[in-house]
């Protein structure tokens, strides 16, 4: 499938239903409203579902540009998560419900804060058993983080979880969730680069545009490098495909993108100055998310530890290890 045939209508849809004012409203009242209806009607949510089950049967590599677009638009809903959840359920013949689904790995009878948890209708939970359980959120206690504008929410429960079941994917649900975060980070980081370059070309201080100052140029150059690193790392992880053959490609991507998220957010704010900190300016919609996604589903250092364990267990050279385990086949 031609990328643009897929991506262009998706981008237009996101521009229509997930503009900055809409994002702010959803952050305030946690009601997705027409945003979700439009996504549901568009068919994109079934992009990964096998054709036999009524979906488009696309691969993870095919939908990679869509995942990045979600980050680029700071879409305040678990779109990629729902697409993956539907795939996991549909390929085992489970008739999945409509509505937004988030992915969570439980510790005991609770989850950590899950991105988009406040707007979810179902949580696909990995709770240590043989199966994932798709639990309606009304059957759970939903706990808000209390952070301003934050759409993450955690969940807890007392009675044993019940709901639709499907197998735990290879290498666990966290690997898939982390993969989603890296694509979102790549998208939002790219958007921040555009915004920051645009701002540096307009803002005048000391009688000239700040983008003419070498010190600012050097920061933007670093930002561009980070954006490229996040994009290629997350693309590699998606192109490697499903089921995840090597969780180490995802580990690489989350390690890299987690670091990129922090650095890109810092530079975006540094170049924008005080205006970037204000609520009414759009920058914060992206930088806050970069940090949330960086912290969700295992940080850079958690994934670095996983990758380091595998590397130390291998007698290969670094080049051979990278070629064998960290490059999509």
């Amino acid at each position: 499938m031609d990328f643009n045939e897929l991506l262009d209508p998706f981008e237009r849809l996101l521009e229509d239903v997930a503009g900055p004012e809409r994002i702010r409203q959803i952050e305030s009242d946690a009601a997705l409203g027409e945003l979700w209806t439009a996504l549901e009607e568009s068919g994109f949510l079934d992009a990964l579902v096998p054709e036999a089950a009524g979906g488009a049967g696309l691969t993870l590599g095919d939908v990679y540009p869509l995942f990045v677009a979600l980050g680029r638009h700071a879409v305040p809903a678990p779109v990629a998560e729902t697409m993956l959840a539907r795939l996991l359920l549909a390929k085992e013949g489970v008739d999945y419900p409509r509505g937004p689904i988030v992915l969570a790995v439980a510790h005991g009878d609770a989850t950590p804060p899950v991105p988009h948890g406040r707007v979810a209708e179902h949580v696909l939970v990995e709770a240590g058993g043989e199966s994932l359980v798709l639990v309606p959120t009304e059957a759970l206690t939903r706990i808000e983080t209390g952070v301003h504008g934050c759409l993450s929410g955690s969940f807890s429960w007392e009675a044993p979880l019940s709901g639709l079941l499907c197998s735990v994917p290879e290498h666990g649900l966290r690997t898939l969730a982390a993969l989603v975060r890296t694509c979102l980070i790549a998208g939002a980081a790219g958007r921040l680069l555009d915004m920051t370059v645009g701002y540096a070309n307009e803002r005048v201080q000391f009688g000239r545009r700040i983008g003419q100052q070498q010190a600012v140029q050097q920061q933007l150059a670093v930002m561009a490098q980070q954006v490229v690193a996040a994009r290629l790392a997350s693309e590699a992880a998606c192109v490697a495909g499903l089921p995840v053959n090597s969780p180490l490609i995802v580990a690489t991507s989350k390690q890299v993108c987690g670091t990129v998220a922090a650095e890109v957010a810092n530079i975006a704010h540094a170049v924008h100055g005080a205006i970037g900190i204000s609520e009414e300016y759009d920058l914060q919609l992206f930088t806050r998310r970069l940090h949330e996604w960086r912290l969700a589903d295992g940080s850079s250092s958690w994934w670095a530890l996983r990758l380091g364990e595998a590397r130390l267990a291998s007698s290969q050279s670094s080049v051979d290890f990278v070629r064998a385990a960290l490059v999509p086949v």
Partner: protein
Amino acid sequence: MFENLKLAALPEEDEALRAPLRALIQRATADMPIDRRSRSWQGFDAEFSRLLGSEGYLGLTLPKRYGGGGRSPLARFVVVEELLSAGAPVAAHWIAERQSAPLILNFGTEAQRETYIPPICRGEAFCCIGMSEPGSGSDLASVRTRAERVDKGWVVNGQKIWTTHAMRGHYMIALVRTSGTSEDRNKGLSQLIFDIHTPGITVRPIVDLTGDAHFAEVFLDNVELPADALIGEEGKGWQQVTAELAFERSGPERVYSSVVLLDAWIRHLQAVGRSDSATTALVGRLTAQIAVLRSISLACTALVAAGESPVVEAALIKDLGTSFEQELPVVIGDDLAGHPDEPVDPELYRALLYTTYIAPSFSLRGGTREILRGIIARGLGLR
């Protein structure tokens, strides 16, 4: 932005070069200690370069009619990756094969191509690049070495400095002023190629802080050159140099300069059985970085393969790659010395300190970090 840098894969026919080359490298470098391997593309061994040439591993991207391999830059990526990963001594042919031969192919006359490219592909002709001068470092457009047109050709006067392997090369390709003054900046510059042993040339090696002498100063005193020393067009030297530098900056050598040290450290960790979480996470982080840097470098090579001259992209991967190469000896040193009760092989210690001392040069050679970031900023549409 930079959407043109796309995930690229190495074709199978290029991957096929790897195994036989690896066997050749192992045979030729079996006795090389780690600290010599860690000299990476600074290690000079003319015999090894001739061996690579005779086995067909040099000039892979150059046309067959000039003795090249007629293959894509992705094939060369495999060869370079293998050589650097092993720490093979590639300096003798490095500059000639990487940038001089492509420069001559792109801008030279047919006679120049036939003269210079075949011996470069055989690993018999080595080049040095006369760019920097005592008064022209990053500000390359201010070069003062001047070539005057005379009846029989050119007379060159001036001085070059930091010229890598000038004392061991056969030819110099120099950026010189052929008209105007240094006030005219990048106008009036041209590139000349000549035998480094031409009368009037004095080469004086410069010893560096590791005790090696890889670069030199070169004095040009009324050096008479034939008219056909000119490469390309008179006055177009700046544009030609810019294209040449894209070759110099885009390769995997900007990621792998410290990889011998990285691998030696990991073997050390495995030998002593260390697996504390700080060290393991550090190993993981560095492994993730090298993976993504490799994919960016490969993406850049794929642009070259598509016939583009990725000047900005090359600056981007070089800056990112050299930052990583420079971080390696710092964090590895911190880890090793952070375990003072653990014995460290003297060879590893020498490799560590060699790399630590030479690492500042990684972001100087081929364009400083600040210059590269300026190029990236222009590519972003700033200024």
